[in-house]
């Protein structure tokens, strides 16, 4: 098990390193000029380049950047446009996004699991049909359609919830954003759970457990749920990533100052702020790889087939 975890951690760090390197190189070698040309003279640009170390060979720039990154700052730590430091802004945005994200993941998986289990237990009956229709709609209709409608009806027509996100009333104002963001998670988890449950319920070992005399809740608890839920862990990782994408739209609609909005601002404005793109790229990738790593290890812990490899016990 320790070997498994160590191997996973090593692979994740390596992957992250490669990604940072690729991001860095891509951003540095790209054509065009990283500065708003119309507002700067040629000397200013040259001066600025030297100041930022952009005239050095690319590998040395990378080593410099990495050492700064390890000390906890993103390169020279400022926006190319307004010179504002990146880190505090990023941290503040990250906090908002993170809170809403965690809320919607928690809500999404819980409700999704419940729906999926209900559907599987009532297979072929009305409840199953209802859950299926709901999960199909949830998967098919993009979350931002829900967001727009929820916002229009519950914040505009019936102004119960705040129209825009307000960090000072965090819990109340994040209900709508996180709810609409979690619908896709609910639907996906529900659908996957249902199919896994049905497959497990048809398996030989559940038949054997029934032959032992187990039935109803006992059977579900001891044999079906455990085996069906282990694979569900694997769909959560990609869902978290989808959440990041969804967050971009959600933050635009609800006016949340989050990392998604930061990224949109960095790429959709007149020019592109490379320092931001790089910093955000690193943050997104680390988040993703970190979550994958945690889920991988979690998977190893709950599944004895990985926890105890044949070699260790033979």
């Amino acid at each position, binding site marked *: 098990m320790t070997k498994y975890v160590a191997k996973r951690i090593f692979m994740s760090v390596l992957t992250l390193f490669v990604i940072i390197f690729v991001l860095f190189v891509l951003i540095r070698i790209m054509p065009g000029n990283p500065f708003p040309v119309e507002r700067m003279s040629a000397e200013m640009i040259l001066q600025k380049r030297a100041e930022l170390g952009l005239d050095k060979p690319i590998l040395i720039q990378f080593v410099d950047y990495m050492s700064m990154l390890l000390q906890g700052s993103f390169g020279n730590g400022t926006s190319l446009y307004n010179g504002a430091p990146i880190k505090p802004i990023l941290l503040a945005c990250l906090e908002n996004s993170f809170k809403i994200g965690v809320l919607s993941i928690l809500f999404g998986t819980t409700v999704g699991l419940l729906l999926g289990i209900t559907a599987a237990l009532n297979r072929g009956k009305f409840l199953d049909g209802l859950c299926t229709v709901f999960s199909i709609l949830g998967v098919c209709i993009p979350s931002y359609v829900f967001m727009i409608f929820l916002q229009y009806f519950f914040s505009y027509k019936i102004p119960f919830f705040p129209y825009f996100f307000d960090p000072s009333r965090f819990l109340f104002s994040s209900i709508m954003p996180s709810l609409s963001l979690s619908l896709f998670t609910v639907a996906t988890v529900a659908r996957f759970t249902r199919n896994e449950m049905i497959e497990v319920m048809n398996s030989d070992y559940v038949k*054997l457990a029934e032959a*032992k*005399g187990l*039935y109803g809740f006992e059977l579900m608890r001891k044999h079906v749920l455990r*085996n069906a839920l282990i694979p569900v862990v694997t769909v959560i990782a990609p869902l978290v990533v989808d959440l990041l994408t969804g967050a971009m739209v959600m933050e635009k609609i609800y006016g949340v100052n989050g990392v998604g909005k930061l990224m949109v601002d960095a790429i959709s404005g007149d020019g592109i702020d490379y320092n931001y793109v790089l910093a955000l790229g690193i943050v997104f990738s680390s988040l993703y790889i970190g979550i994958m790593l945690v889920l991988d290890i979690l998977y190893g812990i709950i599944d*004895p*087939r990985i926890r*105890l490899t044949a070699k260790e016990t033979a």
Partner: protein
Amino acid sequence: MNEKIILSVENLDITFRTNAGLVHAIRGVDFELPAGKTLALVGESGSGKSVTMKAVAGLLDDNATVNSGKIFYNGLDLLTLSKRDLRKKINGQQIAMVFQDPMTSLDPTMTIGAQITEGMLLHQKISATDAKDKAVELLKLVGLNEPEKRVKNYPHQLSGGQRQRVVIAIALSCEPKILICDEPTTALDVTIQARILDLIQDLQKKMGLSVIYITHDLGVVAKVADFVNVMYAGKIIEAGTVDEIFYDPRHPYTWGLLLAMPDLDTTEDRLYSIPGSPPNLLHEPIGDAFAARNRFAMKIDEREQPPMFKISETHSAATWLLHPDAPKIELPRELRLRLERARKAANL
């Protein structure tokens, strides 16, 4: 027969819903199992032998419908019981089952020990430590080495033969009266197969079990069975004691089955074989389902299903050849020689 009948199945009829349509898998099956004896249900894949036994154990899949029939266990019709009562009173304690594939019939996330003690803790007033001791004892009984260590193992840490022993230990854990073995050895090597069969026979003697074997291997049947029922296309087509089936078979299909497996003295140039392939029960045949492959098929076979003709108190077969008006046929030469040889070897 004056033994006590522990299990009797009457006119069982089952259909399955499949994507392709309704499959009439069991078309009226009757048999009896005397207490303490071994019954073998023989037939090829798709003949309905596993489905029949799943019906007996109350483990039919959701898409199966029992159209008619009764399954009496000690006078109690199991088909009238609710699923809850069936699990609570019958499964495990009265009727236990060993499945075909040892690789998939154990829960991968649970230790061997937990899976064995589960049934005991459910049905018997027994403490967890006592149950664990008993699990170790059971593993010893089924011949697994280092049972104390094995109870802590997970299924993936055992080999196929070891897993099948665990499955047998699970089946025996609540001291059932009837043990149903669904092809318990097909997934295993011959040498292990022989040991598992011996094991089940020894346990049967020790515990007074009644055993039903589902198999297509006549070697296995010869070794373990007291009574044999041959199934074809969802029906029992010949039933008798093991001696009657092996030394005096009457149904052409049984002939084919017997001769398809050469004994160690077979020297004939050709094996006697049944031509063609089994029918697809999606399109239920009219008349005798075996007619299309029967060298001795008569015109009536195409119109009407043969009833079970009684040959002796214990022996009967469903073929029109046994009808008093049917022409007498000469047994195929291979069969005659084979039966003579078999009788001689058995000193009959």
